């Protein structure tokens, strides 16, 4: 900006950049003063938003982990070694039911955070319980599917396709299971302590985690199940 004014006005007005710098310094000196006044109030909020940015960075790195698994699956899904192929294994109505459970749980998780915003403890716990139940149903269906595949001699040791399938889908399933444990702990915490800056920040992170897992599942059902059968 200051260089712009030198070229625009020529040598005669060379003092201008210096003037602008002084003004900028003055502004910079003013700002901390007003910030210290707000500091006490802002402290919790800053901590919460920093925690949330940190958690967001974690989610992004988790996303890269899944990208590796998706890449592995998309390279290996044709290598069925004479064994079962995606077309012969996957049951789309079953997967659709799983998908709907997870999607509705994402919605109810959002309703839980809204209830937290209203400071309604009962509604928050209620929606978290619904979310937990739907997530549990999802994991239950996935475990049932895996047991069924292994019993049909289509376990992870059967072919490269099935190894990569189990790795990808089970990694997602484990994430959901961790989310369920976290959610149970949060429900106990909210029941005991109510809404503190700490529980609110953690609940907001949990909600991000849960929505993120739903996004990964969109990739799983599109790439693995739909493209596998289509």
């Amino acid at each position, binding site marked *: 900006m200051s260089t712009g004014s030198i070229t625009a006005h020529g040598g005669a007005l060379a003092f201008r950049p210096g003037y602008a710098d002084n003004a900028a310094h003055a502004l910079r000196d003013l700002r901390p003063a007003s910030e210290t006044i707000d500091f006490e109030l802002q402290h*919790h*909020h800053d901590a*919460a*938003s920093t925690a*949330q*940015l940190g958690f*967001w*960075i974690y989610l*992004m790195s988790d*996303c*890269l982990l899944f*990208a*590796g698994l*998706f*890449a*592995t699956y*998309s*390279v290996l899904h*044709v*290598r*069925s*070694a*004479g064994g079962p*192929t995606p077309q012969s294994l996957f049951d*789309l*109505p079953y997967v*659709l039911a799983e*998908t*709907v459970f997870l*999607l*509705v749980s*994402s*919605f109810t998780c*959002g*309703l839980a*955070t*809204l209830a*937290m*915003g209203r400071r309604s403890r009962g509604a928050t716990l209620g929606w978290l319980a619904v979310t937990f139940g739907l997530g549990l149903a999802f994991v239950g269906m996935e475990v049932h599917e895996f047991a069924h595949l292994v019993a049909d001699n289509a376990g992870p040791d059967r*072919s*490269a*396709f099935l190894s990569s399938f189990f790795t990808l889908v089970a990694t997602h399933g484990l994430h959901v299971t961790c989310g369920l444990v976290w959610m149970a702990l949060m429900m106990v915490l909210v029941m005991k302590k109510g809404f503190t800056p700490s529980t*609110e*920040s953690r609940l*907001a992170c949990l*909600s*991000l985690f849960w*929505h*993120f897992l*739903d*996004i990964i599942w*969109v*990739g799983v*059902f*599109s*790439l693995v199940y*739909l*493209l596998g*059968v*289509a």
Partner: protein
Amino acid sequence: MSVANDAIAGHGGPHGTIHGGTHESAYGGGVHGSRKSYSIGFLLAIALTIIPFGLVMTHASVGTPLIIAVFAVAQIAVHVVYFLHVNRSEAQRWNLMALVFTGIVVCIILGGSIWIMHNLYINMMPGMMQGSMG
């Protein structure tokens, strides 16, 4: 995209002003969202799930892989905007940057792997592929 951003901005209406100054700014510019944005997102996501499942289950369409990919990308965008509430506000700048960066890396990993392995497969001598090719 701009329609979606308007919808998110729209939630700041009557109770956004009560909420907005104190609470939402603290949690990265509206992580809580609103009932309206969650409902819109949920309905869109349901539609974007049912349609590709329906297409594949009824064997209705030609060029299905592309259609599935388009629906998947659309649904991911819906989730990011309506459930994760990522937008272009000041408070979300670093979240958005990390997301864009991750998106680029994911595309490189996925596209690169598929491209390289496809070329490898095409250029491989037939004798070396025995037994392993499905």
